[in-house]
């Protein structure tokens, strides 16, 4: 990372700490916002967060590594989370999984080389009567079938540029 990038990130983290109140209770909301903008939390970001909150960076890592939606690894602009729990399983999540893997050329747990898509499993997401259910970032898709996958991925590709810049402005302080 360039020095200027680091400085900018540090500045943003400082602003987030001001916004969320500098205490330990600010930790998860801060990580959520950083992750949303940068798709990852690296060791530099964890160090700055720790400094801002007056805790050891390993405390930040410990929290980040606990939660499925925070993980420190980088992921794509679009995280596709397919529900693997019982009701979606009975409604055919297996076929949807195969089509996702075929169309993206990656397996679950991986990110495409262009950094656009990651495939992840999710546990029950509260859409069990309309499965198989799938989240693409925060957007929900229900009754997903293998033949719908192509259109969903195209929709993401089309909004790729727009989406990325939009998020910066809307979600950061």
């Amino acid at each position: 990372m360039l020095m200027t990038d680091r400085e900018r990130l540090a500045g943003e983290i400082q602003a987030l700490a001001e916004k969320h109140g500098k205490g330990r209770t600010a930790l998860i909301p801060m990580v959520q916002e950083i992750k949303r903008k940068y798709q990852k939390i690296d060791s530099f970001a964890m160090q700055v967060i720790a400094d801002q909150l007056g805790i050891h960076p390993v405390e930040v890592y410990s929290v980040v590594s606990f939660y499925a939606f925070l993980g420190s690894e980088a992921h794509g602009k679009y995280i596709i989370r397919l529900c693997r729990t019982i009701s979606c399983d009975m409604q055919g999540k297996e076929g949807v999984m195969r089509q996702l893997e075929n169309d993206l050329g990656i397996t679950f747990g991986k990110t495409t080389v262009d950094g656009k898509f990651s495939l992840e499993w999710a546990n029950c997401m509260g859409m069990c009567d309309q499965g198989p259910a799938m989240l693409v970032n925060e957007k929900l898709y229900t009754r997903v079938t293998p033949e719908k996958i192509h259109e969903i991925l195209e929709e993401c590709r089309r909004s790729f540029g727009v989406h990325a810049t939009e998020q910066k402005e809307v979600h950061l302080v």
Partner: protein
Amino acid sequence: MSPLPTFSTMAPEAGLKKALSLSRPDIIEEVKNSGLKGRGGAGFPTGMKWNFAAAARAEEKFIICNADEGEPGTFKDRVILQEHADLVFEGMTIAGKAVGATQGILFLRGEYTYLRPHLEAVLAKRREQKFLGKQILGSDLEFDIRIFMGAGAYICGEETALIEALEGFRGEPRNRPPFPVNTGFLGRPSVVNNVETLASAACILQKGADWWKAMGTEKSSGFKIFSISGDCQKPGVYEFPMGITVAQLLKEVAGEGAKAVQVGGASGQCIPASQFERTIAFEDIPTGGSIIVFGQQRDMLDVLHNFLDFFVDESCGQCTPCRRGNVKLLEGVELLKEGQCSMAYLKELCALGETMQIASKCGLGQSSPSAFLSVVHNFRAEIMGRTPSHV
């Protein structure tokens, strides 16, 4: 027709207005008299919970609405928040007055981030209408609500893990006691209630304890919102009185002829067809509202495999019976599927399950073996002596 007929017919804010005209003990008395029990699964009497928090002395107290809704097969809290958020916030405000809290927190699971704009808009409107903020409806009541987003961990539905997350820690359950009503968020007395519990409390203030008690059974008063999925023609959200039998419920959703019904989600019990006359109520089969129907074609070992994958994934790992026990049960299911499990080993696995029920630190490990034990008990003929599928 709305899937939530009773919530839909409530007069807006009538419960809150009633609460403003009552003393704090009288509000609690009304909720106690109704016999309302927690809708999040554990079924703790709500009036009693509020009373403990009201009696605790502290400068600050909190009302926390548990919208973590992660139990497999549960989605009714999402529908309640989409269609009747006002009623939930009204319930929180009433609880705030009853226990003397000025701050409320809605803990919303990360998977429901798409609900947040709507909920923030409802909160903003309530502030404008003086249903939230200082001097609510011209009284001296002060109460406001903020939203905290979960970060993808089923265990955070457990109330002490939820509080750990709010405080910025890993969602690892605490020892209880002390209970949150005494030592909760930031060490302050905190009421943690389910979304539906709070909405129901608002209805009870409006319509009175007797109205609520006239529905349901003696020990499980009122109605309950169910989330029904699986092998039936009409899955969805339903309102039924407590005490409904499994058979009646299956009829309503056109799921007759089912092989088994999972009541209470992955943590619940698997009820075989021979027991469909049993009732859904705290005194018989308790539930937070998740009902999953299994048709004749379903393999009960596949079901167990799916549930145990879930628990292995979601165990916080803090205590050994749950961290290792769920892995052992999962391996046991794999052995059964391969037709390689002796009766002696199956008995050992059941003993392990019973140990987990007693020795685990929180409800996750205490209830995760239930489905395994009930399938072994009720479907033994189906699960023993299998020929492996790849032979």
